[in-house]
């Protein structure tokens, strides 16, 4: 029998009368999945529920088919990087990792070995023997990341792991997360910087008002959003002439000349339109410098989805 790595079954959680997450059903498989949502949409609650830090009010979380709230041993398979900036301030980075690894059941030498491995992977080896109280914000985030992956878990939950990191650390950590995904780990990562999520993965889970609003591949979701036509900006040497040539295409909804050398084409049937665009451009004879889709990125997608959901 096979089971999904991670499965939520009608997961619901209240705080008193406030609802945090409401009847969430979803499955998450290996690879990196980006968890997105507005502040207060229920992202953190969902994270904590899936990582076994909160008990569901209703429903359950299954990890490889086992109910998370019944088997505490399942934490051997889970790595959790919490969002608050909290560490064992008086320990050194290495001490903290070894301590937490030993609590995963590894013996002392094995814990030392794995701690070193995790320090190397997060580029913290140089600072390993300094107390974490003296770490910069980026290093503090990295040591949190290190403790989440040191015991080689199957599933990782990373809640805003880049908050406060400098661009270099961000870059390194994003590489690391992509690598974890390639290794076949199931990685759930939340971030407000959509640009970065896009660089790590094309699979997202969007939560709004405590419910799942969209899940799956960014581009496929984008094509499902029909209400907002795709916009393509074309730079060319004569925008008006090109506009006249493109307007007869049946996929084109409208053309707007933004500047003498720039026009924007709107289409509601992107697949056909883009398939035919090279031919249209070549046969028009207007010299083209380049073109780009304006709202094909996660930022626009997020805006459209959240806007439409109200």
């Amino acid at each position, binding site marked *: *029998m*096979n*089971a*999904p*790595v991670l499965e939520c079954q009608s997961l619901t959680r209240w*705080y008193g009368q406030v609802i945090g997450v409401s009847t969430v*059903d979803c*499955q*998450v*498989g*290996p*690879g990196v999945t980006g968890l997105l949502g507005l502040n207060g949409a229920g992202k*953190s609650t969902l994270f904590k529920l899936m*990582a*076994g*830090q*909160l*008990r569901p009010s209703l429903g359950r979380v299954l990890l*490889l*088919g*086992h109910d998370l709230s019944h*088997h*505490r*041993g*399942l*934490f*051997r*398979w*889970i*790595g*959790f990087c*919490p969002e*608050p900036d*909290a*560490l*064992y*301030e*008086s*320990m050194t980075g290495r001490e903290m990792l070894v*301590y*937490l690894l*030993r*609590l*995963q*059941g590894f013996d002392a030498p094995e814990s030392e070995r794995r701690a070193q491995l995790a320090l190397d992977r997060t580029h913290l080896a140089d600072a390993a023997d300094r107390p974490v109280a003296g770490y910069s914000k980026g290093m503090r985030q990295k040591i949190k990341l290190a*403790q989440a992956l040191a015991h080689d878990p*199957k599933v990782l939950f990373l809640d805003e792991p880049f908050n406060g990191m400098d661009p270099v650390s961000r870059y390194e950590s994003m590489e690391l997360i992509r690598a974890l995904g390639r290794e*076949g780990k199931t990685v759930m990562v939340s971030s407000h910087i959509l640009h970065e999520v896009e660089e790590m993965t094309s*699979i997202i889970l969007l939560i709004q008002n405590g419910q799942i609003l969209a*899940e*799956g*591949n960014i581009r*496929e*979701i984008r094509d499902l959003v029909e209400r907002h036509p795709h916009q393509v900006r074309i730079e060319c040497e004569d925008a008006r002439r090109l506009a006249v040539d493109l307007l007869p295409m049946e996929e084109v909804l409208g053309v707007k000349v933004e500047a003498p050398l720039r026009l924007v084409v709107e289409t509601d049937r992107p697949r056909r339109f883009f398939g035919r665009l090279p031919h249209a451009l070549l046969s028009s004879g207007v010299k083209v410098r380049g073109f780009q889709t304006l709202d094909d990125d996660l930022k626009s997608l997020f805006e459209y989805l959240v806007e439409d959901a109200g």
Partner: protein
Amino acid sequence: MKESGHDRHFGPVSQPPGLVPFGQVYRLVFAASVKDLIRRRRLVFIGLVCILPLLVTAMWRAFGGEHLSAEMFFSNLVSLLYLQLLIYIVALAFGVPTVHDEVEGRTITYLFTRPVSRVAVYAGRLTAVQLLAGSLLALSLVVCFGLMVIGNPGVLDLEFIRVYVNHVLIILFSTIVLTGLFSILGVAFQRPLVWGIVYAFGWEGVVAKVPGRLQTWTLDFHIRNLIMGEEDVQKGLLDTFRHLLTDQAEVSAWVSFAVLTVALVVFVYVGGVLFSRKEYVIN
């Protein structure tokens, strides 16, 4: 189920893994907690408070030796400073943060995402806290002994040593019991220190002085009762105390000892169970 864009890669189902052995977790948490407690500023502050009786002892050595015998001075010191003030301060300062340090510092998440029994975590932290609290008071008492005895061998008779050892044991035992109680507050409440102070100086401080059976419901009564069981040392101020409480409830020292022991067991059990059930919403 909705159609969605990516392959789920279903993995094989295996048996869920088990917990890390209780003993190992206990030892690790205990060791880490002791190290952490030693590095905290709190230790210095409480250490300073523990110097207070030493000042008084030094004064007794300097000026009062001829008026007040060593046994009497010591038993007064114990009942006035240690039993009324110090054990509560120390037990509050160490007991309340047993778990609350990790909750407030939000590091508890790291322990709760490990395959460990929460009772083992609680036991490890509690015993570490009790060890530290006990050691601090014991150190204070040992220095006190030194201050009284060094260069003053006259006081060192069998009776004095008996009184001393007896009192030290009672102080340490009550500190351990109280620490167990206060650490429950740390598990249960958002602002445990306030509740702790209300209990220590409200309930214990007032009810224990009320004549009649009501006072048997305080720990203070039983702790005091252990000392009262000591026949020969009730002269000085303690004696006056007892006369004030005309309706002193009569309970044998052994019963009080049993009550305190049972209380300790109950405190540890309740704390452990509460901790393993409690859900901390950490933002």
